[in-house]
């Protein structure tokens, strides 16, 4: 057993941290947060792509670096720490993974090299409004090669060149009727409008599809299964982003508590605050360990992945939520001002807690996968 990242992976982490400290300070995050016309930081995206991060886990034959999922986990944690306002997760954890796992040779050749180089951005569209998306409540359809329906929210929808869309191929909606298609966003049948969200540093859209041209991805009727697989993989990567963000929220709470004096001493010397920060630490450590387990399951293609991914996500959601809200609390009054950065983490924590399904959904996934495992 060796339950840690390798020296090379740690080196990558150090480089990524240094790079992002330099290229993605809070003014970069705020440049997207505070400008409703701005969908992401184009400069940062170009820098990240030049570094090759977008191609980390894409095989060399498709223009990637051909490293593994562990390296992608390392980068995810750093992106989470820096609150990077880029479509990295939509394009890499979702779109690229869909094509990599389920695309035809042609599709891989078409999409992956451009995704790896960063010149193309992709995303995934599942939700159609309130409630938990399930095959029976997806109303978008794909019939006669035409895609119709409405998707919201679609993370990074505005900047995406291509979108993997979940749609029913059968009017009799069930688990075997949902399919995935790839649709080009720059065409008459695709209208995209911005949505305001709780975290404007990660913009979303509403996408309206009217007789849009699209091509099938993977086998018809196997959409739900494919989504579960990709979400399990993405859950681990997002967990690293969440752990990274939670860690910085704790670090900033600590820093402030050492600078701020009240009643004649540093507020960080009061047990009420010390114990709160200890609790933040405990939740983050548990989340980190669950994420490591997810990373192992992901990188080794283990059957454990569904359980490991759900565990990683549930734990990471809890840790980031707690760390980001108590960071505000420890800052006191300035904590809820626009000027201080506490809200950036609070926003991101909730955005990440919902983007591929709420904690309710993932707890349900966890227990149902444990039941299945028990039967086996």
């Amino acid at each position, binding site marked *: 057993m060796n339950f840690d990242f390798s020296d090379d992976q740690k080196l990558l982490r150090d480089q990524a941290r240094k790079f992002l400290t330099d290229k993605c300070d809070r003014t970069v995050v705020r440049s997207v947060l505070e400008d409703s016309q701005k969908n992401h930081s184009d400069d940062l995206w170009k820098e990240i792509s030049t570094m090759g991060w977008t191609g980390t886990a894409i095989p060399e034959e498709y223009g990637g670096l051909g490293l593994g999922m562990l390296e992608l986990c390392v980068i995810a944690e750093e992106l989470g720490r820096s609150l990077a306002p880029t479509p990295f997760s939509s394009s890499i954890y979702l779109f690229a993974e869909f094509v990599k796992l389920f695309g035809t040779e042609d599709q891989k050749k078409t999409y992956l090299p451009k995704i790896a180089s960063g010149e193309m951005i992709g995303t995934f569209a599942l939700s159609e409004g309130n409630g938990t998306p399930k095959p029976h409540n997806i109303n978008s359809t794909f019939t006669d090669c035409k895609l119709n329906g409405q998707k919201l929210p679609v993370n990074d929808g505005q900047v995406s060149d291509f979108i993997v869309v979940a749609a029913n191929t059968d009017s009799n909606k069930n688990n075997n009727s949902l399919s995935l298609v790839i649709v080009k966003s720059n065409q008459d049948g695709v209208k995209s409008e911005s949505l305001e969200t709780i975290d404007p540093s990660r913009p979303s859209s509403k996408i309206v599809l009217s007789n849009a041209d699209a091509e099938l991805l993977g086998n018809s009727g196997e959409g739900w299964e494919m989504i579960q697989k990709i979400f399990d993989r993405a859950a681990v990567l997002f967990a690293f982003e969440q752990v990274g963000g939670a860690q910085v929220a704790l670090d900033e709470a*600590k820093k402030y508590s050492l600078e701020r004096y009240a009643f004649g001493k540093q507020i960080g010397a009061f047990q009420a605050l010390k114990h709160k920060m*200890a609790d933040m630490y*405990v939740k983050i450590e548990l989340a980190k360990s669950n994420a490591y387990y997810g990373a192992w399951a992901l990188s080794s293609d283990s059957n454990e992945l569904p359980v490991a991914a759900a*565990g990683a996500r*549930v734990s990471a959601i809890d840790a980031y939520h707690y760390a980001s809200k108590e960071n505000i609390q420890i800052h006191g009054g300035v904590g809820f001002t626009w000027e201080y950065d506490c809200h950036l983490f609070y926003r991101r924590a909730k955005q990440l807690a919902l983007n591929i399904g709420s904690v309710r959904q993932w707890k349900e996934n966890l227990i149902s996968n444990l039941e299945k495992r028990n039967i086996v």
Partner: protein
Amino acid sequence: MDFNDNPKEAEFRSQVREFLDQNAQKRSEVSLTGSSAGAPETVSGEDAAKEALKKAKEWQKKKAEAGLAAILWPKEFGGYGGTPIEQVIYQQEEHNYFVHSGYFEIGIGMLGPTMMVWGKDEDKKRYLPKMLNGEEIWCQLFSEPSAGSDLAGIRMKAEKDGSDWILNGQKVWTSGAHFADFGMIVARSDPSAVKHKGLTYFFLDMKTPGIEVRPIKQISGSANFNEVFFNNVRVPDTQRLGEEGDGWKVSLTTLMNERLAVGDPPGLDFDQIFDLTKEVEVEDGPAIKNSEVRQKIADWYVQSRGLQYTKYRSITALSKGQTPGPELSISKLVTASKMQDVSSYALDLMDMNGYVLDDKNPVMNNLFQNGLFFSTALRIAGGTDEVLRNIIAERVLGLPQDERMDKKVAFKDLPSGKN
């Protein structure tokens, strides 16, 4: 990152499995409803406790004969001379079997290593083998009525008398003192020194005249801890460990090992409540089909596995030559409250029958009813939740220490509320 055994680890695991298969019964084959015992904390009743101790000693002897009684101890003292990872492998495998344990951890995990560091060769030869094979049980005499969280505040008097020391005072919360053969004790040899300087550390025979052990009946009804009274107890100076006045330093050896010694706590965790949810019915059918129940137990799964994987991370660090830090303090902090919450929720699931705690009508061996009470002790013993949070805040996060008035003043001049 590799979660699988390397070839050497795999070989060790199969060796352990073979030993366990030949000598113990699989947990899955033991009925939980029968009267059977695991760790001492889950045993209630005097006869059951005696029986459990007897079985535990037999089991320990078998382990010792197979060389598996103390994975981390060096071979010269009868240990396996193994790595922390091998220790985990052994624990993982033993966990799948129903064996009686929980009596030897303090000796093997904490006191043995203390003797290895501070004891004389002849003492190591005399005591360690019997500590290892379960023939002699050891207890740790640290806490006192006025020294709990503030452990260094002990008042037990140690006065030199020729080549002996005379001990007077009281210890409390001593696990297993009622069946222990030997103990290690820290006492105040110089009250005019500051708190941490005036202590001296000894080991002693629990049958020495003047020692009186009184079990403390806990809210669970069982008595795992004791008060131990010392009335002119004579201990030869040859049984001193470390220099006079260095007792705190020696104690730290014991306490550092505590973090490693604390194995997986008695079986009351996600797995048990997951089993229960399949057995009991709630208003709309089997509990496991109820969505509120599913939401609730998922939290305990991630806590439980999060701790397990944190331990693996620590062990990996250890195997690379780094020392395990106070981050292991999170283990008991999380475990104890989890046990309390799991127990309470399990009783809710049993509904009205949940308050029955009857050996003749047990539900899952009364595991959760006992857990309801035992968890209250676990949140306090070995560092309260609050002390552990302080440790994390100060030693891991580097936050300021609490203001303390006991660092500069002679011990005898500290306020105690009694003078």
